[in-house]
């Protein structure tokens, strides 16, 4: 039993905007004051003068799984200077852009985040993702199951077997213990495996009777039909390429009302291309998103400094390797997807990096509906998640932002529209783009708000001289009703939940699935699905 | 006052501040080093027409050079830093880099530097190699003969130009002999150089002319042929005047050079040792002749 009293509460989902209120917690949930039988016995935290909001919900972050670990393993130089010692409560660990599992959990919690979604899980390697997520303490997490280049699915689409495709997707979500359908460069990774470098929305997928457009629309429809809480999480074609904004806009138009989340939109909002230099097309992309209410987006903001890029978009990492000359790890996953890792330095004086920073900011400020706009860095691609406080500072403080802008190369400043944008985010809007909105987009009814019945995931901050200092370390974090962070330090650890969906599927697909596995997979069908042992703290989120 | 019967006029040389660099050119032997040196400062007599003034300071033994070969040390002076940034790469590039067997090093320790090798390296067309040793950067520029080695940056410092002596002789022979004696005496002084051919200038100049386009013209007051036509500065019996112009890293060095030069020039057949000035209007450094022995 816990009472957080007299805090200024920001709970946009329930229309609370900075009013002083008391929050009561019992058995891991938020309860009404009059439901607390024995208030005298409760632990009381006096939040007078402090800011109270729901725990953060990150909709897109790479925190666990084979390519995250490949990034850790390939880059010892990333960890050398960033270390945290064990102290009896916490485990040791570290890493700047790819922290160890424990450090990932602690750092998120210290910033007041309590739920994080791992953005790309190859089904064949799902056990790995879950093993790591079980070593990420405290956080609730889910993982998005990669499907955009799955050959069984491509076969179904090619044969116009929509029902079979739907059952397969449902089966795969369950088999991998996934949370949502993830689409990465649909058809493009499969094409890359066949030797084709770049794939646009209507290019054929070599060897299959399907196009990226068809894959996206089918998976969007399947998400809706299955009633998935979060519907397809899309990393569009031609990500990271100059001139890709046209692909992004055509993709949004193609969706035609289908509920879809666009991942790390910044990397998909580039103008220029061909003989023309890279420039911002944030305004055009933002206009398309603003006009299509079926679409949500996270930004994938770039922050300056060294980081490690990683994605299931194998061809993209190969291109980055060719451009940067940095070391390159690739991992094509049979029948399903690809994956690559390349370390990168987003240097402030580099025109491209600077422009990427500007484009992200421009998107933040041009997307009109905070309920459909979410804060991410596509950790660690744009930069580590530990930079969120600094990004919040940029969004809330126009002066700070323009100082940043003026320190960038002239070419970057002149090829974007950021200088003309005066908007400043309110604190309530920040709560929406980091918590309330992400929880809603994820279909997590018990998260992202402080109403009665919500999970008691609560973050309390002390107002500071600047916003980034305030958000760097929470004064108090409550996770599932337990106080786990005090004064920015983890003081208690417990496992978090693994969020899964069980949409249900028709067993009629099993014979052809079994046959497919026997022909193409090196793991037997009976050994493929993730066993219960890997999700000891499973929380099933109901489909609609 | 008089030295050896020669009058030392009570006048002063009017010197002025410039920026100086010191180049050390080495080569397979002294002859090639001299050749490169002459190519580099051969056309650096007067700031008026050459963009810089320069001269050989002295020859260097193999124990005195960075690469253990015989060499030559040069001084080069310009009015401004910017001029130095133009002149040094130009002259080293054309005078030294082209000359067989040579290498070129900075000879002046200074916090102020200009880029020389750093500019010339581009001649290497991407094949140039940088070497950093003991805080000094060198460039190895591939050339048909092998490699041209040149230091990246050369120190520059404020220095003095315009030290001078006028030797007023009874005959051309006497004046020339006195001038030669002065030159060889001055060449033993450190930190100075004589920019004019053979160390001697016969065409001393005054500021301005009757032609608008010309900033300097012949020093008519000392031209024996014009004695009746102008306000001549020449005493009776003087039929020839030669000038020794001295540049130096310090005023002290110039003073030493003027003193030993004047002493050497005080020979039979010389009437007077004078010095050139512009009435104190141009230079900040006024060196009284008689003070040299004070």
């Amino acid at each position, binding site marked *: 039993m816990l009472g957080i009293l007299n805090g200024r509460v920001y709970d946009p989902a329930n229309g609370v905007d900075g009013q002083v209120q008391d929050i009561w917690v019992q058995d891991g949930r938020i309860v009404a004051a009059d439901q607390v039988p024995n208030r005298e016995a409760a632990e009381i935290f006096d939040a007078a003068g402090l800011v109270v909001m729901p725990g953060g919900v990150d909709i897109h972050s790479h925190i666990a799984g084979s390519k995250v670990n490949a990034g850790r393993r390939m880059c*010892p130089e990333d960890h050398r200077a960033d270390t945290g010692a064990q102290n009896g409560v916490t485990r040791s*660990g570290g890493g700047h852009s790819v922290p160890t599992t424990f450090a990932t959990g602690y750092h998120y919690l210290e910033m007041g985040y309590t739920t994080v979604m791992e953005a790309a899980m190859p089904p064949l*390697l799902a056990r*790995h993702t879950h093993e790591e997520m079980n070593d990420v303490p405290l956080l609730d997490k889910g993982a998005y199951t990669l499907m955009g280049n799955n050959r069984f699915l491509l076969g179904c689409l090619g044969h116009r077997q929509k029902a079979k495709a739907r059952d397969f997707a449902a089966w795969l979500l369950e088999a991998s213990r996934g949370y949502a359908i993830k689409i990465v460069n649909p058809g493009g990774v499969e094409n890359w495996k066949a*030797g084709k470098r770049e794939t646009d929305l209507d290019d054929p997928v070599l060897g299959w009777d399907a196009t990226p457009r068809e894959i996206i629309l089918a998976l969007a429809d399947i998400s809706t039909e299955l009633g998935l809480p979060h519907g397809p999480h899309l990393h569009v074609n031609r990500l990271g390429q100059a001139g890709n904004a046209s692909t992004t806009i055509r993709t949004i138009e193609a969706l035609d009302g289908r509920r879809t989340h666009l991942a790390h939109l910044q990397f998909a909002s580039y103008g220029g291309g061909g003989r023309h230099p890279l420039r911002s097309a944030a305004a055009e992309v933002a206009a398309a998103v603003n006009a299509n209410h079926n679409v949500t987006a996270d930004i994938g903001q770039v922050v300056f400094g060294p980081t490690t890029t990683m994605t299931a978009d194998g061809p993209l990492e190969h291109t980055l390797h060719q451009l940067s000359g940095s*070391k390159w790890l690739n991992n094509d996953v*049979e029948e399903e997807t690809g994956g690559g890792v390349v370390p990168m330095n987003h240097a402030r004086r580099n025109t491209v990096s600077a422009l990427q920073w500007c484009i992200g900011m421009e998107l933040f400020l041009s997307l009109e509906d905070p309920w459909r706009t979410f804060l991410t860095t596509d950790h660690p691609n744009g930069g580590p998640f530990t930079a969120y406080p600094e990004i919040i500072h940029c969004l809330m403080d126009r002066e700070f932002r323009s100082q940043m802008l003026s320190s960038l190369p002239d070419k970057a400043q002149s090829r974007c529209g950021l200088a003309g944008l005066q908007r400043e985010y309110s604190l309530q809007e920040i709560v929406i783009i980091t918590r309330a909105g992400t929880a809603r987009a994820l279909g997590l009814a018990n998260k992202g708000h402080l109403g009665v019945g919500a999970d008691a995931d609560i973050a309390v901050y002390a107002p500071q001289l600047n916003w980034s200092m305030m958000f760097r370390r929470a004064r108090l974090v409550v996770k599932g009703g337990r106080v786990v962070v005090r004064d920015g330090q983890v003081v208690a650890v417990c496992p978090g939940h693994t969020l899964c969906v069980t949409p249900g599927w028709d067993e009629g697909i099993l014979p052809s699935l079994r046959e497919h596995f026997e022909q*193409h997979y090196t793991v037997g069908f009976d050994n493929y699905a993730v066993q219960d042992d890997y999700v000891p703290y499973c929380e099933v989120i109901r489909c609609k | 006052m008089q030295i050896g019967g020669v009058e030392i006029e009570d006048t002063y040389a009017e010197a002025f501040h410039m920026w100086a660099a010191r180049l050390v050119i080495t080569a397979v032997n002294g002859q090639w080093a001299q050749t490169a040196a002459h190519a580099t400062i051969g056309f650096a007599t007067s700031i008026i027409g050459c963009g810089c003034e320069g001269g050989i300071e002295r020859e260097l033994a193999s124990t005195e050079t960075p690469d253990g070969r015989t060499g030559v040390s040069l001084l080069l002076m310009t009015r401004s830093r910017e001029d130095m940034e133009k002149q040094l790469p130009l002259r080293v590039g054309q005078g030294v880099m082209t000359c067989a067997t040579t290498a070129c090093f900075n000879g002046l320790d200074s916090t102020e530097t200009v880029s020389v090798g750093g500019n010339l390296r581009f001649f290497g067309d991407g094949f140039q190699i940088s070497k950093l040793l003991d805080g000094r950067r060198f460039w190895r520029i591939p050339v048909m003969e092998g490699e041209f080695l040149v230091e990246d940056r050369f120190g520059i410092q404020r220095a003095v130009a315009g030290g001078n002596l006028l030797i007023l002789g009874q005959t051309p022979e006497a004046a020339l002999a006195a001038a030669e004696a002065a030159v060889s005496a001055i060449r033993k002084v450190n930190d100075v150089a004589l920019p004019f051919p053979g160390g001697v200038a016969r065409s001393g100049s005054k500021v301005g002319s009757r032609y608008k386009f010309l900033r300097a013209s012949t020093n008519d007051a000392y031209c024996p042929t014009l004695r009746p036509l102008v306000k001549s500065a020449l005493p009776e019996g003087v039929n020839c005047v030669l000038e020794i112009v001295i540049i130096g890293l310090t005023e002290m060095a110039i003073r030493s050079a003027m003193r030993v030069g004047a002493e050497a020039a005080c020979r039979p057949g010389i009437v007077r040792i004078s010095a050139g000035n512009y009435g104190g209007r141009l230079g900040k450094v006024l060196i009284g002749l008689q003070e040299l022995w004070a």
Partner: protein
Amino acid sequence: MTRTVEHVVCPTCGCLCDDLVVEVDGTRVTQARRACPNGRTFFKSYDPTPRLPRVHGREVEWNEAIAEAARMLTQARSPLIYGLSSTATEAQRCAVELADRLGAILDTTSSLCHGPAVLAMQSVGLPGCTLGEIRSNADLVIFWGCNPAVSHPRHFARYSLPPANRRSRVAVVVDVRPTATSDIADLFLQVEPGSDLEILTALRALVHARPLSARAIGGVPLANWEDLAGRMKSCRMGVVFAGVGLTMSQGRDLNLGELFSLVAELNDCTRFAAMPMRGHGNVAGADQVLTWQSGYPFAVNYGRGFPRYGPGEFSAVDVLAHGEADAALIIASDPLAHLPSSSAVHLREIPVVAIDPRESLTTRIAQVVLPTACYGLDAAGTYYRMDGVPIRLRPVISSARPTDEQALQQLLDSVVRVSAGAVPTC
């Protein structure tokens, strides 16, 4: 009474074949169908009879052995934890936590065999894929310094040279002597020992049509290398399996780095992958666990309270050779049999705790021996295949012994209790 268990995973080597059909009579495996000779021996030789732990050669109760092991480890100033290649990730996770809480040095057998491949990957990256990509798509398969016919007998059939598309692919072997693998190859290039780096650099040059003046490299005429480079560039998908012939020969990680660079560059014109041919069943899992918990795959020192990486310094071989450990916990490995004698000798001079299902040279000299169940036989757990695919092992017989994980968890609890009063202070 005989039972039959299907879809059984064989944990013997990095192949992790998961299609075995195992017959069990009581507590003994009588048949391991589809298993290779190595796998058959593994399954059939196992005796799951419960055994008591030993302390200084004396059989004792489990708790007493744990207490003694905890005492030995906590009293050490520089304890080493080593092994982990033949145990499940569940146990590996406990072992890493134990190292973390103790401030120990932690190393896996990886540092001895494929550690150089990790160093190479940290230097230049590694273009790879899962084995199924190779099975379905490769048309050029190169075995370099490895002999899977003996070390990974089912590798050909299941992954690299499946009979169904054997005709459509070319198998090349590069090795210093003929082997059972070179016998089945389409092309065998027998090279001089220690010439791998020269050959690989030459191949990189040839792939880019850069001129070479040497007429022969590694004892093989340049024309043969030109031919191989041509095949590499023109194949649809190629793969190189790198064996200990590359990692253990002169050059080690630089050999592998050259190979990975070559393969990376080949991806500019076609599709190519490289894969270290990892031996022990779960050495890949040990890499993974240690990496996600510490950031580093092997040779980690927790002495400062946080992990530090030191291949060549914190690798067991070096720690022992320099006498820099004063106690050792050996898990599922037999360093006395496998480490060079210069390192092994130190193990005889310090207190050793061994956790292993089987007796070995190391358990014979250990002061404390904790006999555990065997993953894949009488314990369930996770193993990672050589390509990083995690598979859950199915136990085929019921266990009467604790698992490595349980033993380590007890040891961990005991160590935390013992050292609670004496936390190292700065």
